């Protein structure tokens, strides 16, 4: 087991494996996405208070979850790369950042479009919204910091420190609705309480979240493959790849 695991920690072996995994994760994303949109638009009932406007929930919650989850995964790989000096782990962290930033942006964007009709404002400086905005800036900071350092291994290390320090923000986002009075509603899904929303709404939301999750895996693998080629362009394994033969 450990032999197999370590083997795939090397870009040379991970590159073709990732290539084989991309179509499967893309397919799963499409299937979950189709199911989620069907449930969200055609099965889930109209909300008693918010009418049809609540349907933004189907992407807002999934995008917000992914923005936080991808940050943790990114910080995890950055931390592994920093402690064990494994270059593939650091490349994985670099590959996750733009997708995480995109989901953080989508969370803020859909939140603004939901806030306007329901709260009467696009934006308030309350705990939940502000901490999510900080998450977006942390992603941008990570990307900008790595882009500013020419030597890739040094960029990995500097980025890892930033990513790890920023982890403190994730529980702040998550618990912000409990710790402070905010305009934002409480957690949509709780592990300790029975679901408060209709079953079909919950299921649609989970399907969309799974769609975003599978999508994130697929694009992160696509990006990490490009990064491997860019960084290891002068290595033998890259020169021997069939797709680079002139």
């Amino acid at each position: 087991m450990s032999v197999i695991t370590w083997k795939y920690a090397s870009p040379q072996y991970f590159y073709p494996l990732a290539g084989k995994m991309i179509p499967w994760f893309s397919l799963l994303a499409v299937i979950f996405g189709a199911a989620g949109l069907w449930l969200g638009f055609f099965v889930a009932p109209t909300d008693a208070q918010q009418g049809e406007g609540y349907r933004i929930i189907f992407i807002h919650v999934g995008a917000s979850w992914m923005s936080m989850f991808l940050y943790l995964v990114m910080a995890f790989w950055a931390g592994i790369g920093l402690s064990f000096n494994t270059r593939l782990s650091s490349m994985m962290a670099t590959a996750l950042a733009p997708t995480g930033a995109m989901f953080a942006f989508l969370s803020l964007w859909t939140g603004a479009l939901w806030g306007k009709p329901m709260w009467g404002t696009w934006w308030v400086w309350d705990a939940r919204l502000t901490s999510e905005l900080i998450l977006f800036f942390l992603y941008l900071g990570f990307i900008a910091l790595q882009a500013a350092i020419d030597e890739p291994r040094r960029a990995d290390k500097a980025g890892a420190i930033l990513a790890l320090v920023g982890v403190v923000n994730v529980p702040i986002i998550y618990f912000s609705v409990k710790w402070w009075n905010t305009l934002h509603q409480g957690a949509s899904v709780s592990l300790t309480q029975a679901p408060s929303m209709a079953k079909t709404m919950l299921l649609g939301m989970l399907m969309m979240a799974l769609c975003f999750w599978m999508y994130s895996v697929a694009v992160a693998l696509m990006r990490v493959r490009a990064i491997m080629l860019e960084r290891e362009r002068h290595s033998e394994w890259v020169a021997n790849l069939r797709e680079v033969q002139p």
Partner: protein
Amino acid sequence: MTWNSPAEFFAMGGYAFYVWGSFGVTALALLIEPMLLKKRRSEVLRSLQRELSAKERSQ
């Protein structure tokens, strides 16, 4: 089924701008990102091919 006609579906009970503004931008983002990555990959591959063929000629 919640909707009686396509027009009613697209109107989203008066929330069309907010609902479609959310879903539209999300769909766009999820389509553009993989497209950019495909472009990035083909650019790397092309430059690698150029490098390799230059190396072959010089040998």
